């Protein structure tokens, strides 16, 4: 998967979880959950979506490593092949 495709998929998933927000305006370093006002329940739905669409199961102890788009992409790079 190409990095820009991956990013697009992530934005899409966030838009589904928080339809009234504009994930595209999210800066790469910003805290996703805080900026888009995503609660713990929806945060878990995002983790579930990452597993379902990308096949990456993020263990609970790694939640801290995926707080921003930038961190999330670096994390995903260690799990799936991204060009």
């Amino acid at each position, binding site marked *: 998967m190409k990095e820009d495709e991956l990013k697009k998929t992530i934005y899409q998933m966030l838009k589904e979880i928080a339809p009234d927000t504009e994930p595209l305006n999210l800066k790469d370093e910003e805290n996703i959950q805080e900026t888009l006002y995503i*609660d713990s*329940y929806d945060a878990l739905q995002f983790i579930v979506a990452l597993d379902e669409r990308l096949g990456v199961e993020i263990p609970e102890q790694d939640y801290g490593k995926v707080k921003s788009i930038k961190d999330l992409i670096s994390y995903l790079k260690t799990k799936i092949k991204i060009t």
Partner: protein
Amino acid sequence: MIEFQMPSLGADMEDGTLVAWKKKPGDFVSRGDIIAEVETQKGLIEIEVFDQGILGELLIKEGTKVAVGTVMALIREKSEIDVEKEVIELQPIEEKVAFEISPKITEERKQKITPLARRIAVENNIDFSKIIGTGEDGAITKEDIEKAQTLKYQHFKIGNGEEKFAKKEILIKKEIIESATESIRMAVAAAMSKSNKEIPHYYIEKKIDMSKALKWLQEANKNRTVKERLLPASLLIKATALALVEFPDLNATWNNGLQLKKEINIGFVVSLRTGGIIVPAIHQANTKTIDEIMAALNDIIPRARALKLRSSELSDSTITITNIGEGGAETVFGVIYPPQVAIIGFGSSIELPFAENGMLGIRTVIKVTLAGDHRATDGLIGSRFLSSINKYLLNPELL
């Protein structure tokens, strides 16, 4: 004959609009069956029936707004059916039932239409009897209704570019969301005003060391797939439910005196992203396992957000929990939902210096509050109750 009435889904509900009958005359209904869909301030609610029998006359037309308590249909009890058995055999039920609704409406019922499409049609006064459905088996879909709406709209406005179609569709969706948001706002306003006017609240707070509970949760989640993972909220709900078994005076309603409730049905506050709250009930939470509570949350949260709950979920709560979750305010003092007598507020989890047995350490802490109805209980009961919640969260293996 049993009268099936428009139920009250909260102290603030005065009326509801019948959107669709889900059963037809002659159908056998039993407790828990969904008999109708009703549009209320809290969204499109599936109304359950609490009796058993054969559905008789439908007295209310679909699309009609009726007050709480209005008789909407008649249900014939089993005993009545036995007595009238011979008559029934001679006269099939379908023919025997007197329809008060016009033949045109009866025809409409035969036409297949999805619930969402029906809702949009009713809300926008669209006569769907003439629409040819494009869905499965010719069912009318949301898209068909929206298209009809667009065409209706275009009688007034010139121009039919594709973009305009799309814009109008978005506009319709936005209007539906906005009207739901507004009515929920009004429902919250009515209930909270009543509470503030009638209930003398008292407030108490306790800090709970969550280290053990969260460690237990982390261990439990290690062996679970992503979908099966538990959220801290499930532990908070179970601990509260168990503590309520010890303090039944808080699991009650006040109506010219204290009325204890047999079941512990926890109303869990779900915030809507567009504003407002919905409080669906988790039934008999004290008897559920943590996994069952989590499954209940996974079931009701998305439905609450989509404003699609069942009547029992909106009307059965015996107490309320509001949970701020991660990263939010540290303390929340609730306003009691009448006629309940207590609301429990869990703040966000925070790391704090925590002294225990003369030692100081850093612990993850949650501040739990109780707002109690002072007519029903006193601070002492409230304080013991919070200590009981604390006891369960310090010993998660008890949950």
